[in-house]
């Protein structure tokens, strides 16, 4: 199963992620 998030954000929104990295509920995905 998969969860897809699609969202609007200011252009300077930045992700704190690496492709393929394991993640858990509550861990930060990104911020403005």
């Amino acid at each position, binding site marked *: 199963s*998969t969860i897809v998030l699609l*969202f609007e954000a200011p252009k300077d929104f930045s992700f704190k992620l690496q492709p393929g990295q394991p993640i858990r*509920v*509550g861990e930060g995905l990104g911020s403005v």
Partner: protein
Amino acid sequence: MLSTGRSFLPRPRPLPLLLLTGGGYLGYEHYRRRGPRKDGAPPPPATPTQVALYRSFPTRLLSRTWGRLNGVELPTWLRKPVFSLYIWTFGVNMQEAAVEDLHHYRNLGEFFRRRLKPAVRPLCASSCLISPADGKILHFGRVKNSEVEQVKGVTYSLEHFLGPQKGRGNDPSSFRDSLLSSPDHDLFHVVVYLAPGDYHCFHSPTDWKVELRRHFPGSLMSVNPGVARLVKELFCLNERVALTGQWQHGFFSLTAVGATNVGSIRVYFDQELQTNAPRYSKGSFHDYSYVAVDDQVLQVAGVGGGASVQGGGVVLQKGEAVGEFNLG
């Protein structure tokens, strides 16, 4: 048998034959494509014929059968060996489970829906957006030209994925632009893949208000990263539930995409939602608005958990449990 005149040869059965030959062919193709490539390039996506062949498998029927099988109550003595095998195969961390005693779970379906101990998933306070689920980041980034990447280089149409938007009419701007509330904003996406051993509830990734639920009945192909690399538009073909609304920066959506083994999706505040039902018409979708038009709408919405309905939709807090995936 000879005396009764019956043949030793079994009667031909087309469905298992199709499954065996088709599965064998796809397996061979997958193996051939995944073979070492001298240029290091990723394997090319499957052809439309290969995707059509895969889609012709009765994945929905298989999924529901799998679900029913896993709903059968196991005798107490069998629970520990069965669940231990599952834990060992998929690397489940039972130390995090709210109930560690395997005898407590009556069947694999219940075990799959296990809850976690409180406080084992602290919420990141410095991020306005947190992960809604345990899993692996399949892909993320900025959405360009109304095409979203499910994995690097394999895309799907944003419009097919979310369906037509209300009030758009003959708007000449791109679908992506029509979702944005400000020219200073962009559209972003994140894909989280949940493996069979992961905790399968999903939580609210931010503070937001859900206005609409759109249920797309569809195929139930595997969504594992290998298949996502091969099947273009996989997320538009599979059964899914899209929750859309608003957050502090404008448009926001969370979509739960089903798969063969995990075919049904539950949303705690929506008792009306029924997924992976036998009746299915390709390309259809069913909307349910949480925006109160009158009192009747609020009554049938069936709000549960910590969510609350206000005049403009269902208000969700960051980290709040929203729903779960179920076997079959």
